[in-house]
């Protein structure tokens, strides 16, 4: 069996979403195993496995869990982030649809490891169907006593609740997610304090992405050693790559980390539509910096390689653009999204995202000036790193990278208009 055959998130097993099938395939064995372990040993194992968060920031999951206070008189919470809102990203949806029990099992193991007795799944408002699927799965798990009082014959009790968001992208940001759960406006919180100390209702809280938690059962079941061998050691495991755009075979592919970006596009996603040339790729969801098509040779899909290539693995949502793509148009669409989804709390993002969108739209309309490009760049630079949450960066990176890597296209639009006018 080669690396690329390992599929534990989306194995090709019919009806896996049903608990009987999941159990038959060895499901909930990891939970049984975990419940026999000391909670700290589970965290240690996850730390050893180098499991990194799949929500975009690649933060080591075990380390995150270890931040939770051990002897807290206050309740502790786990939030499962199923708010998957990043354009180009549609991987958690697959887990919810095809393998919800892996998420539930991972959630239960994580909860047990951190001493959490209540977990919330915050699911995006548009995922009505998937919420239903997850709720059914949770119901099954309750019925089999995997969730609830004294689960699986242990002394440990835990509840899982599903909470549907109202459709704001910002609520996928972990602190906004907590505010939203509390019934407040979905505004990000200033850190510090961090959620592990002051999260939901001011209590210790960990927020993990769906895919991250779905990775946990195999780590516990097969051990960290086994897991470390999949993909890249510093960022191991399989990833769900969602490939969209101008490819022949778009979809979600479960492959190890470190797969070649070119393989992903040409081998798995079937190559570019109509045999056109590749112009650009956004490798990890719309916020990650755009890469030039002629610069992706040898670029691998893992955290470190993509940083080196001048982008980010993000959520693994690969957006492929062929030679006919109008980059300033794409950027306008992306900027419109970040403008619309800016929460309005802090100044740079609230005012900057709208301004950037306006400038780009004007350039696209052929009314831009050369100075506009500099102002655009300037606004993006001033947003980056200076906002309460990462939405500011998410809005700035596409702009910065598009200007850096495709400046000619912007200039051409400005010049062309001048020529026509003349």
């Amino acid at each position, binding site marked *: 069996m080669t690396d690329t055959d390992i599929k534990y998130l989306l194995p090709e097993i019919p009806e896996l979403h049903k608990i009987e099938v999941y159990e038959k395939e060895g499901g909930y064995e990891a939970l049984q195993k975990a419940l026999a372990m000391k909670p700290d040993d589970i965290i240690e194992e996850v730390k050893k496995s180098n499991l990194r968060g799949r929500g975009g920031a690649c933060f080591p999951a075990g380390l995150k869990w270890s931040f939770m206070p051990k002897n807290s008189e206050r309740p502790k919470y786990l939030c499962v982030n199923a708010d998957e809102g990043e354009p180009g990203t549609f991987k958690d949806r697959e887990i919810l649809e095809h393998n919800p029990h892996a998420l539930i099992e991972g959630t239960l193991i994580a909860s047990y490891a951190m001493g959490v007795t209540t977990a919330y799944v915050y699911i995006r408002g548009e995922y009505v169907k998937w919420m239903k699927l997850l709720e059914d799965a949770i119901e099954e798990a309750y019925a089999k006593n995997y969730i609830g009082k004294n689960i699986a014959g242990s002394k440990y009790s835990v509840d899982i609740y599903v909470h549907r968001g109202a459709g704001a992208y910002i609520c996928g940001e972990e602190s906004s997610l907590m505010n939203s759960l509390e019934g407040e406006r979905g505004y990000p919180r200033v850190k510090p304090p961090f959620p592990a100390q002051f999260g939901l*209702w*001011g209590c210790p809280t960990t927020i993990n992405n769906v895919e991250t938690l779905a990775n946990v059962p195999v780590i516990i079941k097969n051990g960290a050693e086994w897991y470390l061998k999949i993909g890249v050691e510093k960022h191991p495991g399989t990833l769900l790559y969602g490939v969209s755009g101008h490819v022949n075979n778009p979809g979600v592919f479960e492959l190890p980390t470190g797969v070649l970006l070119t393989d992903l596009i040409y081998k798995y996603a079937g190559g570019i539509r109509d045999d056109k040339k590749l112009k650009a790729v956004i490798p990890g969801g719309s916020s990650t910096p755009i890469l030039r098509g002629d610069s992706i040779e040898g670029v691998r899909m893992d955290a470190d390689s993509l940083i080196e290539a001048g982008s980010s693995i993000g959520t693994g949502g690969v957006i492929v653009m062929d030679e006919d793509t109008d980059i300033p148009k794409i950027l306008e669409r992306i900027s419109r999204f970040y403008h619309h989804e800016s929460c309005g709390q802090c100044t740079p993002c609230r005012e900057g995202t709208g301004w950037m969108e306006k400038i780009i739209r004007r350039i696209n309309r052929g009314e831009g000036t050369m100075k506009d490009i500099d102002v655009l760049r300037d606004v993006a630079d001033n947003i980056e790193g*200076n906002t309460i949450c990462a939405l500011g960066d998410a809005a700035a990176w596409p702009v910065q990278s598009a200007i850096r890597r495709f400046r000619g296209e912007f200039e051409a639009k400005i010049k062309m208009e001048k020529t026509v006018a003349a």
Partner: protein
Amino acid sequence: MATIYVDGKTYEVNPNNNLLHECLQKGIDIPYFCWHPAMGSVGSCRQCAVKQYKDENDTTGQIVMSCMVPAADGTRISVDDEEAVEFRRSVIEWLMTNHPHDCPICDEGGECHLQDMTVMAGHNYRRFRFKKKTYINQYLGPLINHEMNRCIQCYRCVRFYKDYAHGDDLDVFGAHNHIYFGRHEDGVLENEFSGNLVEVCPTGVFTDKTLKEHYTRKWDMTTAPSICTHCGVGCNTIGAERYGSVRRILNRYNGQVNGYFLCDRGRYGYDYVNSEDRIRTPMMRQENGELESASKELVLNTLKEALKSKKNIIGIGSPRASVESNYALKKFVGSDRYYTGLSDTESKLVDKIIGILKNAPVRSPSLKDIRESDAVFILGEDVTNTAPMMALALRQSIRQEPLKLVDMLKIPRWHEYAVQDTLQQRKGPFFIASVTGTKLDDIATRTYRAESDDIARLGFAVAHILNKDAPAVKKLNKEVKQLAEVIAGALKKAERPVIVSGTSLGNEVIVHAAANVAAALSKEDRRTNLSYIVPEANTMGVGLLGGGSIGDAIRGVKDKKADTLIIFENDLYRRANKSNVDSFLKHFKHIIVVDYMQHTTTQRATAVLPAGTFGETDGTFVNYEGRAQRYFQVYYPEQEIKESWRWLRDATLQAGHNDFKEWQNLDAVVGAINREVAAFRKINEAAPNSRFRIAGLKMSRASARYSGRTSIRSHENVHEQKPPDDPDSPFTFTMEGYSGIKPPGLTNLFWAPRWNSVQALTRFQEEIDGPLRGGDPGVRLIEPAQRFSFSYFTDVPAAFEKRNDEFYTVPLHHIFGSDELSIKAPWIGELAPKPYVLLNKEDAGVKEYNEGDEVEVQLSSGTWKLPVKISDSIPAGVIGIPAGLPGLETAILPGWSTISK
């Protein structure tokens, strides 16, 4: 203390504060918007960015928001770093993208924090080449103007309104750059502290709508430090004038009293000064029976006869007249012929209160003490309506107990949202016993609705649980007993409990019960804070001066054989039964009323002399706490308007008495009080005297930028007139004189170089959010005695028994309406309730009354026709009538009455 490094310089700072706070404290200018010392940091505007370095070797650094970083030992930052400077400039550039740049027609212009910060942050040229966003403004009532287009989304308004004042009808709507701050629909802002939005808003979104009626720029107003005249709290204010009328009231920070805020009655009640009902000239009763204007000389000459023999004179002072005027009157007519002007009930209660505060093991707290209390028990007061700013202080107290958790978790108290996230719904113990629903019920742990004697019984019961030496309450029902246990338990656990009571129900046993609770809670090393609310600006002042009530005057008039009555600033009809006052006044040949407002009593006068309001005179008021505070004349009146004591001096001199010959100015009066009245031994410390100078200069009332001084009177004479002299204070009436930072009691303008808005305040504080430089003004006249002599009050009343045919009738106080003066401001009048009678639902059922039915309420003194309002919360057998509304003289309440249709 901690050491921080700012641009290479070393500073000793308090590590419990954030960097912005400490930098401003040290005089380092960092622009900011969302941070407010009373409301903490939230990091949303991003304006206060600085560069932070890990250590001395770090040359790259990182941009941080100075308001969100603790001033921890060893912190290294740069304010001047190029990248930080550029980022701060860009923040203003963003904020300005949609700002209308309408400064010339904006009321905020010239005192706009946004203007100051724009200049400070260095944004000059506009790069935003798009249309600006516009909003629809809302009607927010008669007090506040709304202009959303100017908004820079700093969130201060909702943070004040919702988080600080607990209002629920102003909020933020929308998202991204389409954020809207307003109400869900047009309508009057419901919170009693809405006027603070005007000062909290860094630009012109929320502005003073009443100022619009007579708009003047900040620099063109003549200002003086003043004291609010609309209740007994004594908030410090700044009165501002131009062209002889008072234009607005601004908050004057006093760390011990009002802090940064005012209530809407205090901020907007000022217009009585400009009212048509003002008395502006001396008047004489003519032979035709009419009261007509006459020259000062003529009136004083005529009064010679009336004032000839002191033995024939009775003097009635007033709780709205200064200590100085009351003292002068008392000195002239003699102790046995001077009456304080308080109603019978009030006089009795105030004497009791002063006795308790002086002798019992309790302490009268400042508003700051109240803000910092960690358990509250209110007996009988609807504080929001009787002492509004005390209610705002009490609202802050509910955080104190839960803040222990915040401290335990080591969250800095200034980190506002983190504090809120931690506190969640946690509230400190807060108990209210009142006759009917109060406006603090929303934060109460438990409320208790009962007739006033029953409220006292609860208090007595709590005191007895706390200390068995306090008398027990007989026949207490189980529920009340349990409640008393709960209250006693919570108070006992508290470190800084406060008991609040007052005079508003006119019930003596409530005052006693409150004293018992506080005394029972006191320990050797800790006096319990006991706060008694009194109704008027100088109620405590006349109480300390001492004298009989109006009732005493009425009852004693036959024995006194007096034919002359001098009344200072008092409408007797508001304080005693009409028929009694009518027959009382008939005893006198001469009725000399010195006052600034026309009222029923002035209509009966034989001579009227125009006294001054806070706008035209100086004087001292003593607030509920026992704090003597000086107010200074704001402007020089055109007409013959003077302090009441000055009129008395002039009139008595004319009549051949030399008592006040030496009284050339206020200092002489204050000096005499200081020497002669033991209770006022410290009154001269209330403010600097008239000889006070800085660098040989008097203090200027007008700002250095005051315009039009040479043209303002050019229609009369092209030559500039000599400015009037002010013998009473260290102020000039013009821009001449010292205009820098004045001593705390003399602050008339918050301004500092680069800081034209009220945010300049940080430059006036010794410590941000702490005392003013040189100490908070005012002097406490009542401090707890070292050795107390107190025995528990034992007059536990019997439980209230409902009568078949009569209703116990209590006054219900209203922030807008119950105060004699503020209701003269048309916008306050607009907000005042119409007269009504509040009736329990059951009683209404028995009587078959419906909401709105007109009924006759008959008291011993007369009959009122009032529409019925039905309530769940007022106890059966009790009815309530709004206090002090014009035409509803409720001074005679409480009492029994009958109702019929």
